[in-house]
Each structure stands twice: as C-alpha cells, then as structure tokens.
C-alpha cells in the first residue's frame, strides 16, 4: 500500500462518525408514517365520501383502492430496497403489481371505445382535473420521504428509483383523495384515478434522478 493511499485512508478514518445503519424496516415505517399522515390529514380536512362515512362500501371503491394500495406498497418496498444496494438483488415484484393495476384504466378505455355502457356527457370536467391535481399534490409527503431515504442511501439504478418514488407517491396521493371523492363511475375511477399514478411515475423518472445521484 503506498503512502499516498495510507494518507487517504487515515484522512477517512479521522473523519469517521458513528452512523445509524439503514434497515428496510425503518424505511418502510417512515413511508407508512408519511402515507398515514397524508390520508389522515386528507380525511380530517376534506372529509370522507358520504357512503363510506355511513359505513357502506361499493365494490368499485374497494377494488380500485385495493389496487392503489397494492401499487403504493409494492413501489414503496422497491424504492426502500433500492436505497441499500446489493449485487444479486432484483426487485421485479412492482412490475406485476403495476401491470395488474393497469387493468383498471385499460378496462375503462375498452368500455369507452366499445360503448359497452353509456358514455358520460363529458370525460373531463372540473372535478376530474381536481382529482388528478389533488392525487399528485397529496403524494408530495410520501415522495419527499422516499427521496430523503434514497439520498441517504446509495441507489444504483437512479432512474428506476425515481420511477418507483413517483409511482408510490402518486398512488398514495390518489388513495388519500379517493376517500373523499364521491364519484363511483367506472370511467371516472378507471381513467382519472389512474392518471396521477402515471403522471407521478413520469415526473419521478424525469425529475428525481438528479436529486438522488451520488
């Protein structure tokens, strides 16, 4: 070992401070706290949709929000794992979850195209755009939490990590707003409640890599 190398190692040793090792369960707990806070605040400030507040749950409500929850959990777990790199680690589970969740908008498009059911008068009104905007905005706390986690960690696939953060935060935000949104139409839920996930993924893939590069 050369003296230059020894000096370099000595400098790093001199700079050593105790650190708290990252563990997946800590990352998942932080993300769950962020998601739980978002949902609680949304319900407290905007209120629950009337049928849910009365204890009635439509099949569409349960099915669609179950898919949103699955995407949120799958993508959050992938993002948390990406913060702790390891050769031999592959996280493909999120692809299956997203593919299954994608059936909802695809089914809505097929129903629209085939006119299986009566077309809505207008596809996009103020409320539809509000769902998209709120879904994205309400995902910001989850996004910020996962970005902080990834900045502390060492993600090796930063583009994919950004995509995971975007998909996870978009689905958490939409899940929170779905508890308030009273519309129970398949078109509305299939199209407009899926769009924040898609947009979140795109924004995350484009914007987040520069925040987590190391």
């Amino acid at each position, binding site marked *: 070992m050369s003296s230059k190398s020894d000096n370099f190692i000595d400098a790093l040793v001199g700079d050593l*401070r105790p650190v708290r090792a990252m563990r997946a369960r800590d990352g998942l707990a932080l993300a769950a706290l962020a998601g739980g806070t978002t949902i609680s605040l949304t319900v407290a400030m905007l209120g629950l949709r009337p049928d849910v507040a009365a204890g009635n749950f439509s099949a569409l409500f349960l099915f669609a929000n179950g898919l949103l929850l699955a995407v949120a959990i799958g993508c959050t777990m992938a993002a948390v794992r990406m913060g702790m790199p390891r050769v031999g680690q592959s996280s493909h589970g999120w692809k299956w979850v997203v593919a299954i969740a994608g059936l909802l908008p695809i089914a809505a498009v097929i129903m629209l195209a085939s006119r299986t059911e009566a077309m809505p008068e207008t596809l996009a009104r103020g409320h539809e755009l509000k769902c998209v905007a709120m879904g994205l905005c309400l995902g910001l706390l989850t996004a910020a939490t996962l970005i902080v986690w990834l900045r502390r960690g060492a993600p090796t696939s*930063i583009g994919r990590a950004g995509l995971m953060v975007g998909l996870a935060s978009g689905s958490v935000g939409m899940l929170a707003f779905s508890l308030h949104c009273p519309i129970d139409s398949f078109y509305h839920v299939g199209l407009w409640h899926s769009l924040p996930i898609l947009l979140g993924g795109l924004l995350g893939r484009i914007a987040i890599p520069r925040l987590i590069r190391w």
Partner: protein
Amino acid sequence: MKADEAGMARLMALAQGGDRAAYSALLTACATWLKRYFSRRVAPSSLDDLVQETLLTLHRKLSSYDPTRPFFPWLAAVARYRWVDHLRLIYRAEMVELDRDLADHGDHEQLAARLSLERLFAHLPTGQARAIELVKIHGLSIAEASRACGQSEPLVKTNIHRGLKKLSMLIEEAE
C-alpha cells in the same frame, strides 16, 4: 489482511458504530480488494483514482450497508456504480493489461469473480461491449474504434450510449 465475508461484515458493523481501528482495517482491506476488482477493467493510470473514489463513496454511504446482510455484494454494488460512472466520464485512457489471471489470487477470489465486472459486461450485446471496451477502456478514438470493430462511427457512439445505460441498470441484477 485476508478479506473474508464474516470478518469484513464485522469490521463494517464496528465502523458504523465509530470504531476507528476497525474502520482503518476495513478500508485497507477494501483498497486491496478494489484494486484487484478494477484492475482488469480500467486503465492502470486510472486505477488508484478509481479505488480512492470508491473508498470515498464507501465513507459517504457508510450507513447504506445493512449489517445483517453480506458485505461483499454491497461493496461490489458500490464499486460497479463508481466504475460505470467512471466509464461515462472518461474519454481517453491508456491501454490496460487484460491478461491477468484471477485464479492466482486464492479462494476468496471465487466470490470476487461472481461479483465481477466481467459478469456485468457479459450481459451486454457484443457490439455494445466491444464499443465500450475499445473507447472507454482502451482509450481509442471513435474513428479508431470504428475501424477496429467494423462498426460505423455513429453506431459506435450509439452502442456506447446504450451500453452504459444498460450497465447502470444491471449494477445490482447481474451476478
């Protein structure tokens, strides 16, 4: 010191707790391991710099290692990331000696071989691997690489771009 998995994981856990003696031993062992790890895939003139950059990354990302998991797959992921980053940045380098034989370096090299950079390269299409090897490692110009491998100059550039992008996606997945 000999870099065995259990010993390195223990030193790393101690280093995360602030034990400087353990950290010094860990970094010294890592420097030796990294030199051997990178030696076949970077120009000799870049080797020390890349090892130091990787040690500095290890220092900055110390907390990203989970002490309940194996150490070398973590170190290899960090090293691969720095290596791909290095390939992106470097445009010309001296010729590298590629005929060293890993078999002379003892049993623990079996682990190094499993995690090696060769395995990462093996996942690239031949044209992309050849273009990166000629330009980013051997230091040829685009025109020289084009003549050497029979690809057009735009294709060499495209293969380098696509190959580096694919390498960065494969850092953890390709064993």
